[in-house]
């Protein structure tokens, strides 16, 4: 498991991006985002362990419940989050009260009581592989003013430190730092997505084509027409592969890459990637995620599917002229009628039934 986690430093750059984007505000919504971020990162990173933080909406900073429970015996939450509250000091100064109740190796609740006047929050999570003395992952959240050097998830072999903007600096400077950090983080995320796609592709490429087609159709729910379009072959070709016919080398490679994309989206992306892949990214364009895949930009598809890039960002990265080159139909929109059938209606001028 430790090795598996070490192979997934991708979580870090992805979440750096999120953090930089959300931590512009040191008020409670920003902190809530950070906590939500912590929950997601730890849950994903431990792949089998879930960690949930339950917010108490009425007075969330005063009373926060943290529950950690490992699923299965492989993982142990060795060090329960230590959380301190204070004003102008460190957590160790004892301003806050942190109390953990329960067996840290199995399950328990951490109840935090914080004076209403304090303004910052810091939490540490350390995950240790019980089979080795090494720390596998360490996570720290903190309001930016408390701990500027706060780190995100640290993989055992790939520690990453993010830049957290200071408070009490000029908003313009903050913006510049945040933007620069976001760009760096995005670049790292894209590189990591490409790496993960390659790893997944190599795995799928070892399977016979009919197994890959079955995986896409039966496990993912991908329509064969979408698969055919993604690979650049006729639906007949896909059907023949499913029956066991051989594929050309380049088709086999693309098939494996498409399956890799589907796998990664299932893990990181939309609820149901099979249908999502064929839905236009923006109402202003006909481009779908499958079109981006066909054009060789599976990385953008994953970034968009994981909600780390807006539709406009995704399409701008693909082609700055997307509005001109791939415009949606200015005259018609396709709507589903009461009988379940789809019809094309002129935009704006006709009242839908």
């Amino acid at each position, binding site marked *: 498991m430790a090795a598996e986690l070490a192979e997934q430093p991708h979580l870090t750059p992805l979440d750096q991006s999120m953090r930089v984007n959300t931590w512009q505000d040191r008020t409670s919504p920003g902190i809530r985002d950070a906590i939500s971020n912590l929950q997601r990162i730890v849950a994903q990173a431990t792949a089998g362990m879930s960690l949930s933080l339950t917010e108490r909406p009425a007075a969330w900073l005063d009373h926060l419940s943290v529950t950690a429970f490992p699923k299965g015996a492989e993982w142990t939450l060795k060090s329960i989050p230590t959380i301190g509250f204070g004003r102008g000091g460190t957590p160790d100064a004892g301003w806050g009260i942190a109390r953990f109740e329960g067996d840290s190796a199995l399950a328990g609740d951490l109840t935090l009581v914080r004076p209403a006047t304090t303004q910052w929050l810091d939490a540490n999570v350390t995950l240790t592989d019980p089979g080795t003395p090494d720390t596998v992952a360490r996570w720290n959240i903190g309001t930016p003013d408390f701990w500027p050097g706060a780190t995100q998830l640290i993989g055992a072999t790939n520690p990453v430190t993010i830049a957290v903007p200071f408070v009490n600096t000029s908003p313009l400077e903050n913006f510049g730092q945040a933007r620069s950090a976001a760009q760096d983080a995005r670049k790292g995320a894209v590189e990591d997505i490409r790496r993960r796609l390659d790893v997944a592709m190599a795995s799928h490429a070892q399977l016979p084509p009919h197994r890959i087609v079955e995986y896409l159709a*039966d496990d993912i*729910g991908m329509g064969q027409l979408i698969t055919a379009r993604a690979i650049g072959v006729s639906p007949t070709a896909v059907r023949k592969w499913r029956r066991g016919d051989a594929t050309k080398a380049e088709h086999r490679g693309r098939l494996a890459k498409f399956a890799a994309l589907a796998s990664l989206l299932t893990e990181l992306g939309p609820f*149901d990637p*099979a*249908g*999502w892949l*064929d*839905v236009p990214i923006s109402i202003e364009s006909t481009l779908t995620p499958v079109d981006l895949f066909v054009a060789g930009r599976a990385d953008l598809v994953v970034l968009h599917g994981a909600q780390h890039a807006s539709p406009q960002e995704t399409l701008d990265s693909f082609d700055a002229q997307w509005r001109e080159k791939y415009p949606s139909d200015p005259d018609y929109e*396709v709507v589903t009628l009461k009988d379940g059938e*789809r019809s094309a209606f002129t935009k704006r001028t006709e009242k839908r039934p």
Partner: protein
Amino acid sequence: MSEVGEPPGDEDAQSGVEHLRALVDWDAELDAALGTVDAPLDLYEEASWYRPISTGDIFFDVPVPGCTQEEHGSGLTMILAHPSAMREGAVLEERARAGPVVHDSRISRKKYTPGFYDLFTLPGLSTPAKEAGHELKDQPWAALLGITGTIETASLDVKRRIACLSPTGVTLLIQKLVHCDTRHAVRLDTVGKVMAEKLEEIEQLQQWNEELAAPRVDAGESLQTVLLEAADTFEAALQPLRPLLVDPVRRGVVWRQIAQERRALRAQ
């Protein structure tokens, strides 16, 4: 040198345009609005017995009522009904719109020919026909879009089907048919969006047929009876899930469920 039935300059784009300009009904603006296909065989799908009968299918020995002997001399007929109009669920409607397929020496036998707005040209039709086990003369074929009639779907036998259109072919056909009927050119992607889920449903039914009906036919049961039963069981499985198909992002849920049903039935 051009072959018989080949317009001058078929191999040469410039000459081909010159040839088209000589035709009365050629219009550059309209041609830009209507779709085309570069590789003619992209128009076709394999005409497997287990492919559900659908829009663009071409049969022999199915007369179209109202057509003259000249119009129907070839004996070939193309289904022209919209995919949404020719099926009630997985089962064919009793009647469907169809048009005759004719030999027309004005068009190319090898390339999709622009213009000719009352025809749907069928370049290379002999190739899919041969793959389906039928010999067809290699000449310029086209379906008449302006002269159509209503046929009984009970007369359609998949063993007499010589070709099926691919999703690309069906979309082009419907676009041209709509224009022929209304003189209005709707964008190809919009036409495709309207039909997308119907075409995917046909794919799923074919998969169902290949896995559940084909073994029974191979064992000696009647093809027609088995296909009808397969359509019924497919519809029974899909019917409760149909509302989910309305939302494109939930189609995956439907097809995963159908795959489970298929596997369960196959295991029986």
